């Protein structure tokens, strides 16, 4: 069936609710309304108020009680309404959720998924366009993933819900309505594996979530100039499939990482450092990063200049290839 990314999320949640009576959804406005992006549309009607909880408006409370429910044997899937609203829950996520297994000597796993619509590009007002992935990927005990397309969104969410560790599940909200065929019966790849979206020879582009589409557009444009760019979809930010990136960079000798989050201390920095270590003798140029500037996410009318777009990706490619 052909599904938009947000419908694929809905299908994955529906499947998880149907398959495992321990799965519960929690969040603000996810029940009767179906979520502000309609990701949970129809689920409370079909599974009841005990499985799909319209919670009080308190993010720390949602994640804190989700931890308690998980300790009782449930598998909560939490929706945070927007990226910028996750921080009231950040203490519970970092201080409690991420550490419980380690501090219990490995005994207490917390299978909690925290879904966060993230990133810009929708002309939203303040606090509705952020990319906080590095703030989560830096925390031991969490897994952090982000699908870029409907097909991945479906099976990655199913795997995240099945996972016995807490998973931060970042949904690229500006790609919510992009459609593609989704086969819900196809065997899934490993949650943390890189995907070669478009093979190429001259240089590797790594994106994830919303920037995979940007990288593909850049690769298509570059091809017209006779430049062959390989596009990888990272899919997972913690852990990162460095073997997958390394295999590509050994072939192309060049790498650029593209994300919306500020470049400074971002995922690109980690990838650049590790790939420089692993592929030092295979690199023809320094690893470049394309991403956000060191400022709070700007007001909507400025975001076109803030977000990495096709031209900025091509600019990085040009600079890399000039070495």
């Amino acid at each position, binding site marked *: 069936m052909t599904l938009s990314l947000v419908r694929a999320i809905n299908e994955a949640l529906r499947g998880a609710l149907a398959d495992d009576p321990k799965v519960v959804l929690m969040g603000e406005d996810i029940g009767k309304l179906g979520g502000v992006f309609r990701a949970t549309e129809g689920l409370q009607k079909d599974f009841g108020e005990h499985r799909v909880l319209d919670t009080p408006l308190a993010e720390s409370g949602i994640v*804190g009680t989700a931890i308690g429910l998980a300790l009782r044997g449930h598998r909560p899937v939490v929706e945070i309404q927007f990226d910028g609203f996750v921080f009231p829950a950040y203490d519970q996520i970092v201080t409690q959720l991420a550490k419980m*297994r*380690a501090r219990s000597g490995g005994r207490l796993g917390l299978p909690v998924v925290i879904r966060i619509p993230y990133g810009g590009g929708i002309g939203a007002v303040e606090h509705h366009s952020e990319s906080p992935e590095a703030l989560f990927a830096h925390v031991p*005990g969490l897994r952090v993933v982000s699908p870029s397309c409907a097909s991945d969104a479906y099976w990655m969410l199913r795997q995240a819900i099945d*996972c016995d560790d807490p998973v931060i599940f970042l949904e690229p909200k500006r790609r919510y309505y992009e459609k593609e065929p989704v086969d819900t019966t196809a065997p899934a790849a490993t949650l943390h594996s890189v995907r070669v979206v478009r093979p190429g020879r001259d240089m590797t582009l790594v994106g994830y979530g919303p920037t995979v589409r940007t990288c593909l557009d850049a690769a298509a444009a570059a091809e017209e100039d006779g430049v062959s760019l390989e596009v990888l979809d990272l899919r997972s930010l913690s852990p990162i499939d460095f073997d997958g990136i390394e295999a590509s960079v050994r072939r192309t000798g060049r790498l650029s990482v593209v994300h919306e989050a500020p470049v400074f201390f971002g995922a690109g920095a980690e990838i650049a450092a590790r790939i420089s270590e692993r592929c030092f003798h295979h690199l023809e140029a320094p690893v470049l990063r394309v991403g956000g500037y060191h400022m709070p996410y700007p007001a909507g009318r400025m975001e076109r200049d803030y977000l990495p777009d096709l031209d900025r990706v091509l600019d990085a490619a040009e600079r890399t290839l000039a070495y």
Partner: protein
Amino acid sequence: MVQLLTPDGERVPHPDYELDPTPGELRGLYRDMVLARAADGEGVTLQRQGELALWPSLLGQEAAQIGSARALRDDDHVFPSYRDHGVALCRGLDPLHVFRLFRGVTHGGWDPADHNFHLYTLVIGSQVLHATGYAMGVAAEDAGTAVAVYFGDGATSQGDVSEAFNFAAVYNAPIVFFCQNNQWAISAGNERQSRVPLFRRSAGFGFPGVRVDGNDVLACLAVTRAALARARSGAGPMLIEAFTYRMGAHTTADDASRYRDPVEVEEWRGKDPIARLGLHLRTTGLADDEFFARTDREGADLAADLRASVRGMPDPGLADAFGRTYGSEHPLVAEELAWFREYSASFVAAEEG
């Protein structure tokens, strides 16, 4: 304030909370309090001797902890804070677990399922939300058990505690919020935490709150028993404020003389929870000298055993910690562990070479 036993050891009635304990139960409560104080005192001593990194003493709060904990059934689930050694003792937890935590051997290595007693939580108030979520799960399963969560007066200032009160009320969770108001959050007194008595907080969230004499083990037992029965029956949450006093410093790292009046401490010494029940047992003839001597000896023996075990406790190796961060395979952890092992082995090889 609910009180069933005065500081002079005299039983007084209360219209809402009656209790008719057997002599054996009374002696049991006394013994629990003595053992808790003995283990706690050993914690302070071992810290002073450098065997422990830190010890938060429960001195003065024995009645609040033992009374409430003895109201629990085995199948009720408990979320403690970090000073609740008396509760731990009542749940049947090996006290050495707590000593391991404060020695720095683990961050809390016991299995909560063994005694329905969760790990200590050091960040103030966080566990109140966990307990509430757990109780929401209990309610959804219609399990017929209750959850008790322990926290202090300082925790009531945390947003998490207010959020927990609200979630518990909204979802009618079977939970008892047991607040030990020991009147000092390190150096900040009650007047810096709240403008209203803490037990009144619950009213705004839609469930009852009661203040109980926290140095009266019988009152703590009676009120907690009633609150737990209420929760198990599906009537929802209840807040208990056990009004007590922290006789020691906040922890062994603290110096309480810098911020509080010794006159106040002396005044509370006259309300000692153990002395008060002891007085009652003596004047009513429910315990004799032999009982008191035997109980003291048991306390001393427990302390001696703990001392010996803690002193002989080996340090763990870091290599074991790598595998505990995640529940399944993780390439970064595997890579770092392999490196750590190789690096560590290089020293052994160098020494041997």
